[in-house]
């Protein structure tokens, strides 16, 4: 196994160019004013990982508070109920709006997408930079909001609680509004890039599946996020001017808020998971050294998931007071989501079948994704089933389900993607040994943390609870211990990745034998990506010896 890099398909390395995108210009200003998609991608990566760290700390704090029934540790009270509500709210807001939504598209997507298309940059480089600065503004507003009192509404901002509670709700929703526009700009950019900047010879079905995933995501970003914008604007107006849209005391309807919110936030779930699936669709053929099985089916399933995501939002509201007719329709539509998800899963397994599989760190993450996403998807069937959902909704079962999809799916894929493209981004290889150890730890810790929460939920433990019945204590404790294992794995990952930066550049241009265009340029790429405009001569994921030799 120590023979980490199997390089039979690696193309012969050229001498590494002296000037690359990292050292082409110097100084902070050259980064802050850059319009290079690679640098913006790297800055986004640093930003979202910072947000991930803060959100993760809040998560560990939540779990630690729930460790014991009386929230005491070494004789001291960890958090009061008020503080606890703020901490889990901040965990949600930061993880959703500052981390997961921009994670894969804005960080990895920005870096990789133009490279995969053989383009010099995205369609609108300045818009790209503007998007990053909007993200920063949103992040700063969120931090200011946190300092001046934070919020205790839950990340869903349900009215009328959010319109009546104290705290910096207005500031936080303003941050969400701005982050929404950051996301819209990224989406617009990617759609235009995919439409207009593909390399000569690259038709729609010659695009890597990562591009298909990001393209589908971008469609959702463009079409759903504006509704989030108007929703938080209405929420702010309701708070400041009491306009009476959502507040029942002034004749408004709280359930209407939920429609508005989920019209965005359900598609947003697919903004989060589609890019994760997109990464997996790169990792599996590369490390199986076999062509993608059912390429078109996977591409179509990405687009159809994007479209389906717009017509199932009501499944968040089965018991929220929407009409019974709407509930039945939304439940029926929800089951449709299972089909494209299943198609992806089966095609990934089909790709592995008769492959030539090596288990480097990115592939370990890909296999973790398959297992965890399978659990996340299958438990989704429980929640789509009306009679069972009545019992399970608003309990830890839901918490566990969406963590399996969001963290077990997207975050695992994101970390796998970072490992996969790390040599391309930094020009350096990380420690394969530590990579595998950390991945194993994260996988085990994750299941310890969240498998228990399915049981807590089905036993009737509601979510967002500070105090819980004593009977749930052992499972809560087990879950908390699991969260420490995840934390350990994450810190380990951060440590060896950062350590690799201290080495001289040692990564070959194509360490994994990838077939997509980003591997044809140097590691790290030069400022304009390619020495000369690449021309596509073969489809991606073609591992036939005669074409590889080409």
């Amino acid at each position: 196994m120590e023979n980490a890099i199997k390089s039979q398909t690696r193309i012969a390395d050229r001498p590494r160019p002296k000037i690359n995108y990292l050292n082409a210009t110097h100084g902070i200003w050259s980064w802050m004013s850059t319009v290079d998609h690679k640098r913006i991608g790297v800055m986004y990566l640093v930003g979202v990982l910072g947000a991930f760290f803060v959100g993760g700390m809040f998560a560990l704090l939540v779990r630690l508070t729930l460790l014991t029934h009386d929230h005491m540790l070494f004789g001291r009270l960890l958090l009061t109920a008020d503080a606890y509500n703020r901490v889990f709210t901040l965990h949600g807001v930061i993880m959703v709006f500052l981390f997961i939504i921009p994670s894969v598209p804005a960080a990895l997507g920005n870096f990789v997408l133009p490279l995969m298309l053989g383009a010099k940059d995205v369609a609108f480089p300045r818009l790209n930079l503007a998007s990053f600065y909007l993200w920063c503004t949103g992040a700063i507003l969120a931090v200011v909001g946190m300092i001046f009192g934070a919020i205790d509404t839950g990340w869903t901002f349900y009215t009328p609680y959010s319109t009546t509670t104290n705290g910096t709700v207005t500031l936080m929703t303003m941050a969400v509004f701005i982050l929404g526009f950051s996301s819209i700009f990224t989406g617009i950019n990617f759609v235009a890039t995919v439409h207009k900047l593909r390399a000569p010879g690259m038709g729609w079905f010659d695009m890597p599946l990562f591009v298909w995933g990001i393209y589908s995501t971008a469609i959702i970003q463009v079409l759903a996020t504006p509704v989030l914008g108007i929703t938080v604007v209405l929420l702010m107006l309701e708070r400041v001017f009491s306009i009476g849209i959502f507040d029942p005391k002034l004749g408004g309807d709280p359930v209407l808020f939920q429609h508005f919110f989920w019209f965005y936030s359900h598609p947003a779930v697919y903004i989060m998971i589609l890019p994760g699936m997109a990464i997996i669709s790169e990792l599996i053929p590369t490390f199986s050294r076999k062509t993608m099985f059912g390429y078109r089916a996977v591409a179509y399933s990405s687009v159809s998931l994007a479209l389906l995501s717009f017509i199932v939002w009501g499944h968040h509201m089965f018991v929220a007071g929407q009409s019974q007719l709407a509930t039945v329709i939304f439940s029926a539509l929800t089951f449709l989501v299972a089909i494209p998800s299943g198609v992806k899963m089966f095609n990934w397994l089909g790709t592995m079948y008769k492959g030539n599989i090596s288990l480097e760190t990115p592939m370990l993450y890909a296999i973790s994704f398959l297992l965890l996403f399978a659990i996340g998807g299958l438990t989704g069937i429980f929640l789509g089933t009306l009679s069972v959902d009545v019992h399970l909704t608003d309990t830890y079962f839901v918490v566990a389900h969406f963590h399996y999809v969001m963290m077990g799916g997207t975050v695992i894929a994101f970390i796998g993607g970072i490992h996969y493209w790390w040599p391309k981004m930094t020009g350096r290889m990380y420690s394969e040994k530590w990579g595998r150890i950390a991945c194993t730890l994260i996988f085990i810790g994750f299941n310890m943390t969240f498998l228990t929460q399915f049981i807590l939920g089905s036993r009737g433990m509601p979510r967002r609870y500070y105090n819980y019945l004593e009977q749930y204590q052992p499972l809560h404790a087990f879950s908390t211990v699991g969260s420490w294992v995840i934390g350990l794995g994450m810190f380990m990952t951060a440590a060896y990745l950062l350590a690799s930066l201290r080495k001289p550049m040692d990564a070959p241009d194509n360490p994994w034998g990838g077939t997509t265009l980003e591997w044809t340029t140097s590691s790290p790429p030069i400022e304009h990506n390619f020495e000369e405009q690449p021309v596509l001569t073969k489809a991606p994921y073609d591992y036939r010896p005669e074409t590889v030799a080409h």
Partner: protein
Amino acid sequence: MEQQFDTSKIGMWLFLATEVLLFGGLFVGFGLMQARYPQEFIEAHEHLQRPLGALNTVVLLISSFTMVMGVLSAQRGDKKKVVMFLVLTILCACIFLGVKYFEYSHKFEEGLLPPRWYHAQSTDTVRDAAGNVSHGYGTFFAFYFMMTGLHGIHILVGIFLLSWIAVRAHRGEFSKAYYTPVDLVGLYWHLVDLIWIYLFPLFYLIK
């Protein structure tokens, strides 16, 4: 150049789609609240001055026409006409805002305001036993102010963009070969017009 022009256009249309959905959220809210308070909305809409609304519609349509003439002149490279038509468009936009100002001040004087401040009750018929008027009247005006207000903000942004384009046109930055900004601002301006085309009947005309 052609490639960049097409790319910019796709980008602009994507942005316009987001605008449609941004306003769309308010249209949905308006529709649902009208379903909730049908009688109140009919009575409330009688307070709006139909002639002023119609006047503004005409003004905006004319401004769309001058805008498209500006784009046409840009395509033909006629710098003077571009500036002229852009200035005319800005003029129409200012007239529109002027009329809106009169309408708004009328609403404020009459107390035709969102529920919390609504106090024009004389002719309202939907009341409870104690004589309190329904919140539906105020809700109508909440939507009136939000939707025309958001639209007004777009007009203001439009005036800013048009002025910027007019200055650049005056400096001679555009030519037959490069007039992308004029075209894009034109698209934006037409969308603002297009949204008003729906706002006008919804608020002023529907019984």
